[in-house]
């Protein structure tokens, strides 16, 4: 930030801090001059629950339940990464094939509902509440499937060190296949709605661009990096669970703008559906648990591809029945700084959707306020920002004669 501008013209718009879609709610401070964003600060730590410390006084099995509650959406990716760390710590456990397939099914169902959720929220930020309602409506069958297979809509408690906790009932598979086929049509409809709409093209293309170099420099992960042409996906690069036994593609796009991020996420939904179909069809019979007796002293690392990118868990054991150190690195931690590259220089009407493009934030809807840096007077609320964004869509729609 340069210092020669008079402070009157620069305003600070805080967005946040509560941001329930991530394990770390964060506070964005947008520094704006006129309509243009000139700088962005991120403050995290608002949702700190001391999970790593809590994990140290739980047993290895109990930690899975705690880790699940890092995030209500990634509630399978974190346990998968954690149990892999424990298995690594035990010197490589032979996890039964069936358990690996079950892990894959649950992880992909989670990706599916997470991406649909994001699409809905992105639609809301742009003033397309139809997409919001559609996305969330289509998400419900996925949650129903989760509930039937695992017993809960979120927090499935399926993963445990050495395998999975519960078996899947094969008599449910035909109805799951059927509902996924329907969902496929609906996702295709959503993709059509996004790709055919000239207003969305005008709104999303070329804004919030994260170039390939920036994506690599900032170590962006998951859909954010894949939309910039970096095919980073641990499911492919370091396969775990049953990802090397099924046929699927890593979706990438080239431009790294918000449009590409949307399309990457939507196309990944189709890949997830494909993976679930294959896993259910090819699921081997047999045990579901390797029955780990004890965890020897040592350390282990596990990773998993959460809907938002790679998550890494590290555990250290001293031979007792709880970890003495547990470290979690969630994907958003790496994706957040990319805002520096994407949001600066854009107008504030686009800021909400650009920040949302790394991952959504609906709570900021209620909690944004613009403060004039000189007078500290609130001049704009979160609702106004969303309204600005929605008005821009309307204006564009008029200009395009729609």
């Amino acid at each position: 930030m340069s210092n020669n501008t008079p402070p009157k013209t620069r305003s600070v718009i805080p967005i946040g801090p509560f941001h329930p879609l991530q394990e770390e709610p964060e506070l964005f401070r947008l520094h704006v001059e006129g309509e243009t964003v000139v700088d962005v600060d991120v403050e995290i730590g608002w949702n700190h629950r001391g999970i790593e410390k809590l994990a140290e006084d739980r047993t290895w099995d109990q930690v899975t339940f705690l880790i699940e509650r890092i995030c209500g959406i990634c509630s399978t990716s974190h346990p998968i990464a954690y149990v892999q760390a424990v298995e690594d710590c035990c010197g490589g456990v032979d996890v039964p094939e069936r358990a690996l397939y079950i892990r894959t099914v649950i992880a992909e169902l989670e990706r599916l509902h997470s991406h649909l959720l994001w699409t809905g929220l992105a639609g809301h930020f742009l003033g397309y509440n139809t997409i919001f309602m559609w996305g969330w409506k289509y998400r419900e069958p996925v949650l129903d499937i989760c509930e039937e297979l695992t017993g809960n809509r979120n927090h499935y408690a399926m993963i445990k060190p050495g395998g999975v906790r519960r078996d899947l009932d094969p008599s449910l598979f035909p109805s799951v296949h059927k509902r996924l086929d329907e969902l496929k049509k609906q996702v295709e409809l959503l993709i059509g709605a996004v790709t055919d709409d000239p207003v969305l093209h005008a709104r999303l293309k070329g804004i919030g661009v994260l170039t390939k170099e920036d994506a690599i420099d900032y170590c962006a992960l998951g859909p954010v990096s894949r939309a910039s042409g970096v095919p980073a996906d641990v499911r492919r690069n370091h396969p775990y669970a049953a990802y090397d036994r099924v046929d699927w593609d890593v979706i990438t796009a080239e431009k790294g703008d918000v449009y590409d991020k949307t399309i990457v996420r939507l196309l990944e939904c189709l890949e997830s559906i494909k993976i679930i179909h294959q896993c259910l069809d090819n699921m081997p019979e047999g045990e579901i648990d390797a029955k780990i007796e004890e965890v020897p002293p040592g350390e282990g690392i596990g990773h998993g591809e959460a809907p938002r990118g790679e998550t890494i868990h590290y555990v250290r054991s001293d031979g007792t029945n709880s970890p003495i150190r547990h470290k979690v690195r969630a994907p958003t931690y790496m994706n957040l700084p990319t805002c520096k590259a994407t949001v600066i220089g854009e107008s504030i009407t686009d800021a909400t959707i650009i920040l949302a493009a790394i991952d959504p934030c609906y709570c900021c809807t209620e909690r944004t306020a613009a403060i004039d840096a000189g007078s500290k007077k609130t001049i704009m609320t979160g609702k106004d920002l969303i309204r600005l964004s929605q008005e821009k869509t309307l204006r564009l729609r008029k200009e395009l004669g729609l």
Partner: protein
Amino acid sequence: MGVTVKALMKSPWVFHVSAGGCNGCDIEVLDCLTPRFDIERFGAVLVGSVRHADALLVTGAMNRKSAYRLKELYRQAAKPCLVIAIGACACGQGIFRGSYAMVQPLDELLPPGVVTAYIPGCPPKPEAMIAGLG
């Protein structure tokens, strides 16, 4: 409080506060708005400012940073204002009990008696929330 509660619950305008939970509950709260559950059928609307709210829907286990903020929000709310604890976390800190980052359970943090309903579950199903609101 009986009559007041009854009057307020006719078509409550709710404000949603997330205070240090895992967001499983928050998503289910939002889910209540979408076509499958659609609480607007019952006249309940999620509002953007706490000053318009008849009820606060609180999720999460009250950590150090958010507890202060929650108190502040309750102070700003127009009284009488119902407080509804959603999820195991808000009801009694749930799985995060004992963490160094957590201060007090919700009902000890606010003046006694203001928490009107507890909706347990981790996360509670939207049906449970609707039943709790009604």
